[in-house]
């Protein structure tokens, strides 16, 4: 499968996706949406690694993508458990309501 995709275009796509995720983190106050936006940002970082790996035809990009995948899985499991705790304490997932430690 050969193609003529410039590295810059793959990187630009990764940058746009990362920016969309960042805007999501900044704009939304719902903890579930913030975790979703973090997933988008991690995925965009993985896309950047894959694009760079494809440019030089090396396997390292995909190895880094595997690591990012593992980090995303660990992050989302802990994050969703914390969201459940937040809902248990405050009966909402609005993170502006969780201003203090120890509930």
């Amino acid at each position, binding site marked *: *499968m*050969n*193609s*003529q*995709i*410039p*590295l810059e275009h793959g*990187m630009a*796509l990764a*940058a746009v*996706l990362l920016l*969309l*995720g960042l*805007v*999501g983190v*900044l*704009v*939304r*106050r*719902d903890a*579930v*949406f913030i975790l*979703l*936006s973090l997933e*988008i940002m991690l*995925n965009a970082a993985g*896309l950047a690694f*894959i*694009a760079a*790996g*494809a*440019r030089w*035809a*090396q*396997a390292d*990009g*995909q*190895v880094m*993508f*595997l*690591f990012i*995948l*593992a*980090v*995303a*899985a*660990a992050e*989302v*499991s*802990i994050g*969703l*458990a*914390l*969201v*459940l*705790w937040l809902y*248990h304490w405050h009966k*909402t*997932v*609005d993170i502006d309501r969780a201003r203090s430690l120890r509930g």
Partner: protein
Amino acid sequence: MVTLPFYIASAVAIAATFMVITRLNAVHALLYLVVSLLAVALIFLLLGAPFAAALEVVIYAGAIMVLFVFVVMMLSMGPHGASEKWEKPGISAWIGPGILFAVLLAELLYVFGRTPYVPVHVAEVTPRQVGARLLGPYLLGVELVSMLLLVGLTGAFHLAYHLGKRETQKGAGGSR
């Protein structure tokens, strides 16, 4: 001619991601995110990374999204999600980061604009190469990731265990 599908998939990914961060209903956002992840998986395939594309579908669009769906179902947030209000950020809070970010973006565009586009031949990197690389020079990284996953598992179990104990106590107390 594999370039056209790349740009179509890129447009789909960007549009779907934009829909994710603007939806009020969490389930709609999840569906759009699955579309976005599938588009990114297609891009991985076009970039000559079939192994990463398969993992994107199986783990991201499969396992992680199922986790999100379960949590959204457990929260029972109603048809419009938990937060119907949008954060109205004061413009003053955005000025400082905005200026710094604009500087970095200008630098990025400058660098991209100066270097001429090199049309490269994208060669496929097979799973065999990835595996050899992963279990060769990156073996320490694999061990670190296994530690990370173990810590994640333990932490999630700890949080869920105490949450479950509290909920059962509360449920038992309420029924009496």
